[in-house]
């Protein structure tokens, strides 16, 4: 049996801001609810109020234009993202990640913003958002602000959100033309499971080739590995750059052993997946 709570369903962001400011310490926000309801059933979370954001029409919008880039409202589901041709073509890492999260039925409910706010070290979408340099749009009763995704994850299940603040949308600027991105997930099974390791990368092939690499399930938070970007920019052939970037990833991460696998396997596979993904994105053999 689930814990007892009062259910609230505001119709505007303003109403939500007021409710959350009043009940911040006793409330949990619900988007898809696919994590929250399980945690309340297990009595790990015991909020007095559950505030459902799905009653707010603005939060269901997904917009794109070349000037402002992509903006995904906090109540947009992963399957809605997967239906977007723009996301598949221009923000491929996010599209790949959305398609590997949990399973297709869960993805009819689970949201991008929920996955980000949950701040799990194993988040599938976080590495993609890190390489795409996404921004988290945040609102509170006092007004609005934007938090770069690199500053959003503060620890296991901890975010940079302050008291009474909530996420309204995730936005991503248009990547440079010619940039390619992707996400690879290693799980124990093809679906339903959290990742053993997840790797996202974004490669720009024009001019001086550059690469951004981010991972999940290898540290207390999803991480962007700056050292991999610097290693990739070193002189050398593409194959050498890829080897250096993979070595930089393995040097930086600090995976743990858990129910899914041991830390040695995670460390090794983080290198393998980084290499595999960068080869795919650069077209190297």
């Amino acid at each position, binding site marked *: *049996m*689930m*814990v*007892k*709570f*009062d*259910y*609230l*369903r505001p119709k505007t962001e303003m109403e939500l801001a007021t409710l959350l400011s009043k009940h911040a310490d006793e409330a949990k926000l619900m988007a*898809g*609810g*696919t994590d929250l*309801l*399980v945690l*309340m*059933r*297990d009595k790990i979370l015991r909020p007095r109020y*559950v505030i*459902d954001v*799905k009653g707010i029409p603005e939060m269901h919008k997904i917009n794109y234009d070349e000037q402002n880039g992509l903006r995904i409202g906090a109540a947009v589901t992963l399957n809605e993202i997967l239906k977007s041709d723009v996301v598949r073509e221009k923000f491929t890492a996010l599209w790949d990640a959305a398609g590997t999260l*949990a*399973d*297709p*039925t*869960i993805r*009819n*409910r689970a949201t991008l913003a929920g996955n980000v706010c949950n701040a799990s070290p194993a988040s599938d979408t976080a590495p993609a958002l890190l390489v795409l340099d996404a921004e988290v749009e945040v609102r509170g009763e006092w007004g609005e602000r934007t938090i770069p995704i690199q500053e959003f994850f503060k620890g296991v299940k901890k975010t940079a959100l302050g008291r009474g603040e909530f996420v309204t949308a995730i936005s991503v600027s248009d990547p440079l033309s010619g940039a390619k991105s992707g996400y690879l997930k290693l799980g124990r099974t*093809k*679906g*339903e499971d959290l990742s053993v390791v997840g790797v996202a990368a974004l490669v720009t092939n024009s001019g001086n080739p550059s690469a951004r690499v981010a991972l999940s399930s290898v540290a207390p938070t999803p991480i962007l590995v700056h050292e991999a970007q610097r290693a990739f920019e070193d002189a050398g052939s593409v194959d050498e750059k890829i080897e250096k970037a993979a070595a930089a990833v393995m040097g930086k991460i600090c995976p743990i052993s858990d129910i899914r696998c041991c830390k040695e396997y995670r460390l090794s596979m983080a290198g393998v997946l980084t290499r595999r993904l960068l080869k795919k994105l650069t077209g190297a053999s």
Partner: protein
Amino acid sequence: MSKHRVSLNVNGQHYDVEAEANKTLLRLLRDDLEMTGTKCACERGDCGLCTVLLDGVPTKSCLVLAVEVDGREVTTVEGISGGELNAVQRAFIKHGAIQCGFCTPAFILVATALLKRNPKPTEEEVKDAIGGVLCRCTGYRQIIDAILDASKST
């Protein structure tokens, strides 16, 4: 705990019910409306046996609050075919795609929704679509064959 009036349509029939905030759609269907075709197993979104169609979309009913379905349409296995067995159900029987039967309602629902959205799926598309439902008897081969066969007869 807050209580809510919920008006919903289940299998074409209108219901007005009162639900406490923490009641899931799964519990509403099974305990209040006594429709036990929707199965309760893990109750944490893993197994998918509680899958129903919410406005036509496969949804795990253990992860939906009853209060959230106010004004919406729910289809359970009891209402999937409106009397006669549908093509998917007939194909499941033909292919022996039912072993213990506990996962069958969920597979029938996701398969019926798939064929409505994509009448001629590839085997890969069938595997993707059923990815949210687990069969502990592991009879996936027959289930996939049945769904592909049903797609030929529609």
